[in-house]
């Protein structure tokens, strides 16, 4: 179990800055996720941690020890790749045992540890199979067993679930999380799937163009997005552009928008706005309501589409050129073409600096 720290980590590929001065601290035993669209540099960052890429600038520390130039085979990291990367000429047992053989453990000790790892990933009895005799899910479990059997300081996952089908992905997600907590190994996980990142991580960093846009717990980044990119990338929102009128009572501001004057609060604590500033207001679908309380913002919405999602209705509509997404209780009767009045409390309308 180690604490990982990077300081101004930078990696360039020719003209492209894949990782741009990234400074992060990942705690002992933490499940930390790097989330971002493809090409945002999250995989390159992970590969720097693994030692597979040498950063152009910046340092990497494991528990205070500088490992920036330590070659990958001396870093003691277990890595799981998207394509599983099982060695096709070895059976399941040998794939898992390889790292232990390198460490020169005695045969019976290797056998014991491989059995332990196989039990952990629920693959007992498949020792003699070769990789091509396994399903995708089983292959990924072997890859996982191979990474944890060496009891690494750090576990690194590069989009490990994206080749699995949806149902299996959900199962594996829960299992990965359980395993990681059981073993307590500091983990860095890379994915472009925001739902996966939200459900699996202790904390996550959202990346764009090689830069960290925000670091926080899933709840923090969802409820308190630091910028428009994060608000847009995590979950869904209704976005309304506007101009700040002024602060009415801290922290509530008044904002002029195309759907009228609205009351909103800064999305991120401590950020202040001045009159005349361009802002974007963000409202989460579940924060709309059909019942207005005094002081709420309200807007007239023309319904374009209604989707029944089991526990609620998802309503897509438009209000003076603004696209609106709202979640309403499933027992209300709303149909396409209706004009409804949606309300949102000022504290649920998040004010973000315009870009």
């Amino acid at each position: 179990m180690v604490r990982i720290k990077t300081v101004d980590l930078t990696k360039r590929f020719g003209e492209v800055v894949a990782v741009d001065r990234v400074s992060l601290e990942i705690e002992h035993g933490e499940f930390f996720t790097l989330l971002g669209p493809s090409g945002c540099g999250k995989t390159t960052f992970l590969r720097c941690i693994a030692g597979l890429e040498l950063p152009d600038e910046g340092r990497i520390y494991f528990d205070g020890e500088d490992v920036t130039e330590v070659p990958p085979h001396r870093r003691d990291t277990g890595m799981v790749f998207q394509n599983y990367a099982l060695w096709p000429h070895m059976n399941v047992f040998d794939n898992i045992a390889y790292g232990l053989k390198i460490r020169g453990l005695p045969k019976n000790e290797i056998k014991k540890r491989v059995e332990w790892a196989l039990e952990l990933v629920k693959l007992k009895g498949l020792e003699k199979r070769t990789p091509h005799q396994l399903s995708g899910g089983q292959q990924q479990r072997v890859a996982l067993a191979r990474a944890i059997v060496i009891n690494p300081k750090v576990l690194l996952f590069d989009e490990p679930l994206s080749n699995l089908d949806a149902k299996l992905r959900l199962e594996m997600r829960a299992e990965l999380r359980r395993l990681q907590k059981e073993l307590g190994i500091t983990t860095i996980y890379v994915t472009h799937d925001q739902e996966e990142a939200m459900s699996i991580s202790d904390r996550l960093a959202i990346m764009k163009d090689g830069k960290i846009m925000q670091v926080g717990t899933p709840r923090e980044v969802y409820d308190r997005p630091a910028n428009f990119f994060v608000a847009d990338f995590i979950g869904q929102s209704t976005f309304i552009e506007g101009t700040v009128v002024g602060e009415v009572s801290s922290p509530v501001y008044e904002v002029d928008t195309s759907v009228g004057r609205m009351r909103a609060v800064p999305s991120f604590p401590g950020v202040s706005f001045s009159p005349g500033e361009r802002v974007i207001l963000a409202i989460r679908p579940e924060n709309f309501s059909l019942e207005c309380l005094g002081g709420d913002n309200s807007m007239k919405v023309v319904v374009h589409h209604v989707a029944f999602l089991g526990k609620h209705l998802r309503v897509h509509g438009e209000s003076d050129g603004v696209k609106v997404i709202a979640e309403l209780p499933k027992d209300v009767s709303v149909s396409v073409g209706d004009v409804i009045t949606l309300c949102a409390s000022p504290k649920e309308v998040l004010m973000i600096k315009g870009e």
Partner: protein
Amino acid sequence: MNFQAVFSDSEAVRCIVNSVIFSAAATALMVILGVSAAYLVSRKNIPGIGLLDLLVTLPIAIPGIAVATGLFLTYLGTPLSPTISGAPLLIASYTVRKIPFTVRAVFSGLEQTDKTLDEVAWSVGASKPRTFFEIILPLIALNILAGGMLSFIYSMSEVSTGIVVGDANHRDAPMTWKMYDMLFHGLTGGTFQPAALGFMLMVLQFVFIVGANLLLRKRATPLIGV
């Protein structure tokens, strides 16, 4: 009949043995150099590494007789002179001229072996040399075998250097020189004995090329010809 005549001619037998020894030695060299070159080109991101690729492929474009006379004139009178022993020049010439077959076959194998297989081995603690021998080598073994077979059989049938060097030193001459010698200076048997030798070579080539193709099948686009 003609085969009997060939095998009772002690010089013909010696030439066949020469060809096999020199080709085998050259193949060993080609495998070591070829696998190294293919590995560097496929796995190392060194600027200008493409030149190495060109260097080991280019010999196909150079006429054999140019390589042969070049080597012959350069080393004539030196300790490696073909008049002392034909072996060094023949082995060198085979290696230079036939290495593309090994390199191409091995390179295709490496390109089909995902680089994450190397990376995951490093991550569990295997050094780069260890990863090469225990992970990569077993996975490209068939490509090496097939490439080596092609390089070997094309060395056996190499003509240009064989005749130039063989003429200077009959003791170390390969079988291709013997065929030429029988054809133009033969006292008995006319064209039949060299034809018998040629037929043997042809059958051998057929077997090796088909064998290499079967081994490679979808693992590479084999380089045939020249």
